[in-house]
């Protein structure tokens, strides 16, 4: 497919979170604010693009039977690198994202793209695919984080939107589920409109 389509499919049509329902754990777990959502989204994009690159380079050197363990090692290595670099240079974000950084390795999005795309396509296409899906993921997380931050705390990216307290439930667990539910529905509507 054309590379532009390859890149943009990750935003609405095949959005990893809203359509493919992948990577829901971090989507719900870290989106207490738009900044956290964006941070996680970008970290995941880094892992996704890096592993896509490596997998697409080594794909023909890996015997088929051991490809899954090999891909796992590649992905886990980039996740560990992200973890270490964040702890060293972005301590505040590292604290907020916590457990979910190592959990990037089981984000079905990352393994899924490695297996479904990078192992079957050249490096450039894999980079575009990784960036598109990764940024689509980041987009979804930032939107959900922003929604929860505005409704729950009256702020977005730390800037006050309205004075006073918001609906606390949105910053807590139930709000994550309910917020995501409505966003998925919204994305479905937008998608339908785009296709008609």
């Amino acid at each position: 497919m054309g590379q532009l389509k390859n890149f943009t499919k990750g935003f609405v049509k095949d959005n990893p979170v809203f359509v493919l329902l992948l990577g829901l754990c971090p989507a719900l777990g870290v989106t207490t604010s738009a900044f956290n959502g964006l941070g996680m989204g970008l970290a995941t994009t880094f892992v996704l693009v890096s592993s896509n690159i490596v997998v697409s380079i080594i794909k023909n050197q890996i015997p088929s039977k051991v490809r899954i363990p090999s891909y796992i090692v590649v992905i886990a290595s980039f996740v560990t690198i992200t973890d270490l670099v964040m702890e060293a240079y972005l301590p505040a974000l590292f604290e907020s994202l916590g457990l979910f950084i190592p959990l990037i390795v089981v984000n079905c999005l990352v393994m899924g793209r490695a297996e479904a795309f990078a192992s079957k396509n050249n490096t450039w296409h894999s980079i575009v695919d990784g960036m598109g899906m990764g940024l689509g993921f980041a987009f979804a997380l930032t939107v959900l984080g922003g929604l929860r931050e505005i409704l729950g705390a009256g702020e977005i990216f730390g800037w006050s939107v309205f004075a006073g307290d918001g609906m606390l439930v949105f910053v807590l667990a139930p709000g994550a589920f309910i917020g995501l539910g409505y966003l998925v529905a919204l994305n479905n509507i937008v998608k339908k409109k785009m296709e008609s």
Partner: protein
Amino acid sequence: MAKKESTFLNMVLTLIIVAAAASFTLATVYNLTKEPIERAREAARQEAIGLVLPEFDELRSMRLMPITGSDSLEFNLAFRDGDFVGVAVATYTRMGYSGLIRAMVGFTPEGEIIDVVPLQHAETPGLGDKIEKGKSDWSDQFRGFDPGVQVLKVRPDGGDVDNITAATITARAYADAIDRAFQTFKAHHSDIINKENE
């Protein structure tokens, strides 16, 4: 180019090479980030100590066991021009709404509280996170609080600490952490004097 055949030798070789490459890369990155990570942690610790103590030019650290709780507390004795000006205690409580809360408490040499800042917590945003200085001035009540005459418990429990509405559990836990620091300070007073005179 066709994929490599899944012969036993190929599979084992591939796994060994992949594992070796990964280990080498990670060990390298680990070594590169070890110092920055230490620096980041130390910076956070120094910042917290600076927030709860008056000016100092020398810091002596020691670890003391509290009466309750299984982890030792870090005592940072601060000196200025050779005079003992205060001690910053890194304390904790497990009674938080979301479990562990760590805090840094600054005491004067006589045991009065100078200030308290949280170091680590997972309390509810909008409710329990009012222990943070930036989110609310609730914790300002601890400035000048004298645990020797006042009681380090929330008012509903009969103490002199103002509660946080709808976040009593967090407030109670925070008071517990500060109390742990104070009780350890009292119990190990002689050890502190010794360290002072080193």
